[in-house]
């Protein structure tokens, strides 16, 4: 559980984050200057949350309350991961270290940390989050700078990279767990309604995402409670 082991385990995540945050930088460069977009990645380290946040910023109607609530629901899964990770860390992982390293709880870093056979030490976790953090912020910076100079056909294509990543997270779970399939399809159906139905399409992006996800998850949790530890 050394620092070096953490860095090694974090390398593939770092490379993946670089590619994905590159497209976040491009998306952001249509609205903000590159230092500001990079600052978002440095302080948030979350793909879906930042992506939603950017949408809310770009909509003139997006209020701060909407930003807080959208961020809360989209990133709520990190709380669940933080709870389960707190069962897995070594006794040397004190409150102060948890406050400092808590930022590193992302889907992928959490997944790697939980796959460890021995308790997770603070120094290992620091090593593990190092390259993903650098990959995420540098990818955003380069994407934001290049987004202004890259030809249009390239930025158009890179705009779907983030969605590709979302699909790669959702589809494998749908394949092995049928109730997740149903939850996902309910959410998609609601999302289509909120985008195209006459009155519902007035609802802004942030709240629409919250309503789709919360309603679909409530229905799925009610119909198909998950008993085993997933």
């Amino acid at each position, binding site marked *: 559980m050394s620092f070096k082991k953490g860095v090694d385990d974090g390398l593939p995540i770092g490379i993946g984050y670089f*590619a994905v945050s590159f497209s976040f930088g491009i998306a952001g460069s249509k609205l903000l200057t590159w230092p500001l977009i990079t600052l978002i990645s440095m302080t948030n380290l979350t793909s879906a949350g930042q992506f*939603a946040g950017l949408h809310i910023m770009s909509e003139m109607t997006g209020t701060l309350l909407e930003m807080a609530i959208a961020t809360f*629901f989209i990133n709520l899964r990190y709380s*669940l991961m933080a709870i389960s990770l707190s069962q897995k860390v070594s006794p040397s992982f004190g409150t102060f270290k948890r406050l400092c390293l808590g930022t590193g709880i992302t889907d992928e870093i959490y997944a790697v940390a939980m796959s460890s056979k021995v308790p997770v030490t603070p120094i290992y976790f620091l090593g593990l989050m190092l390259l993903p953090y650098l990959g995420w912020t540098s990818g955003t910076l380069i994407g934001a700078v290049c987004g202004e100079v890259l030809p249009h056909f390239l930025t158009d294509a890179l705009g*779907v990279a983030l*969605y590709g990543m979302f699909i790669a997270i959702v589809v494998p779970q749908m394949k092995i767990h049928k109730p997740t399939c149903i939850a996902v399809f309910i*959410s*998609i159906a609601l999302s289509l309604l909120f985008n195209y139905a006459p009155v519902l399409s007035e609802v802004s992006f942030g709240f629409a995402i919250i309503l789709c996800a919360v309603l679909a998850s409530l229905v799925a949790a009610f119909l198909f409670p998950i008993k085993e530890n997933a």
Partner: protein
Amino acid sequence: MSLEVFFKYLFVMAFVTYLLRALPFILLKRQIENVFWKSFLAYIPYTVLAAMTIPGIFKATEFLPASVAALCLATLFSLKGHGLVLVALVACLAVMAVNGLHLWI
């Protein structure tokens, strides 16, 4: 957008995200026992990402068939068990291919 407005949004985003991670990490030392809320939280990531992807991906490019191709190929490659990076790359390549074909024809 003014700098002042941006920093207000940034602060709210970063602060909420940080609290969601740090607070449970330091406060909760035991697992959630309630099956319903545990299940609800387990479904949340997937329903959120699904609602963001559809119809978002259709608006991500300027030519609808390119988006549809990206969605189909990304789903196919995910089903075959390929990872995050490759699936994202395939989606990008699909858009390029369809856009290129569109220009050529």
